[in-house]
């Protein structure tokens, strides 16, 4: 077996990157195969590497998971227990907007590149007749920049991953107001493995299933920001992808 490349969704916060290096070290030791962790600066760059079949293992954004499973034959083996991708739409605390119906249909939104958060957020705005065509997006590199654009009054709303919103500093959050928060539960990041590693699926699943019973494994999980892996069946992921399909078209 070649040395597979592992990568993670570019929307993983900088504070979690060290955790993924620790996970990489732990996983190669358990598995007995070297793995190389490679990070991509953007979703675009990562998708290009996926198209060139360079990726072996990926902790993917649910949006990309659809393409990885349906077009590239990847298999989802695990997801973080109790974690789902939820979006928060926030305004400046002084904004006169009290509910989404108060927003203009040409609403300006500060957004990151994260496709899951952007999709969920645009759906949350639909009841106010704000569509992907009328919405004016201002792209920001990070959620901190999204917050800044809202605070500076350059946009009407900001789209946040709920976890990132909750992790903003208290000072920043005190100047923002949450307008709406999704509670979808079924959309989540998943760990996927490429079809060439098919013979290893069960081994990898067993390793991950036992991760929280191992002291070093527990430490590594803590650094990833979750308590355990939930092992997935193929149909769990197919179900999530069907659900995403209803949202994107």
């Amino acid at each position, binding site marked *: 077996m070649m040395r597979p490349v592992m990568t993670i969704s570019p929307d993983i916060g900088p504070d979690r990157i060290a955790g993924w290096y620790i996970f990489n070290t732990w996983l190669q030791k358990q598995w007995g195969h070297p793995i190389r962790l490679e990070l991509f600066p953007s979703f675009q760059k990562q998708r290009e590497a996926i198209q060139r079949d360079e990726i072996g293992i990926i902790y993917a954004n649910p949006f990309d998971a659809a393409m990885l499973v349906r077009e590239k034959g990847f298999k989802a083996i695990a997801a973080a227990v109790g974690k789902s991708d939820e979006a928060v739409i926030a305004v400046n605390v002084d904004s006169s907007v009290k509910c989404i*119906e108060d927003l203009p249909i040409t609403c300006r939104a500060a957004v990151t590149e994260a496709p899951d958060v952007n999709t969920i957020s645009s*759906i*949350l705005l*639909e*009841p*106010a*007749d704000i569509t992907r065509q009328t919405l004016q997006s201002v792209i920001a590199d990070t959620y901190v920049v999204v917050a800044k654009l809202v605070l500076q009054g350059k946009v009407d709303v900001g789209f946040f991953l709920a976890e990132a919103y909750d992790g903003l500093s208290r000072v920043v959050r005190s100047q923002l107001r949450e307008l*709406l*928060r*999704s*509670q*979808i*539960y*079924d959309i989540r990041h998943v760990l996927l493995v490429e079809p060439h590693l098919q013979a290893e699926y069960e081994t990898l699943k067993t390793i991950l299933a036992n991760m929280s019973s191992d002291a070093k494994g527990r430490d590594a999980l803590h650094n990833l920001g979750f308590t355990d892996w939930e092992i997935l069946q193929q149909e769990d992921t*197919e*179900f999530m992808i*069907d*659900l995403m*399909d*209803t*949202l994107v*078209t």
Partner: protein
Amino acid sequence: MISPFVQLIYHDGTMREVLIKNEEIPFPEGKLIVSRTDLAGIITHCNPSFIEMSGYQHEELIGRPHHILRHPDMPAAAFQDLWDTIQQGKQWHGYVKNLRKDGCFYWVYATVIPNIRDGSIIGYTSVRRKPSRAKVQECIQLYAQMNEAGAAV
């Protein structure tokens, strides 16, 4: 006094008396209402928001036909179009007025898609979102016209 019960005839000719109250329940903010059916439209899965909005218990829904939510104000042609579309393997979108167990109603914007596995349709998934009020107003008029036209035939 006008009876709160209405006779509803399903497309297969079976009849049911349903309780109707003219009271709308708002769509739960930030949530999606999700269900799945088998090929015949029998409910196989539903999420907590689905159960909450329907007013039924989980056990009362699983194994029942999806027309359990059918509201008499919904024109039959809308559902004919739904089934024609999804059986061809395509997505269907539409605004639907649904009936709750307690007789109240709620409006949704629904998307129904076929679940395709190894090239075959094995069932259907419906995901409902909060609809735009303007669109609901249009549909109230449109569905009333469709029902009148249907009754005149």
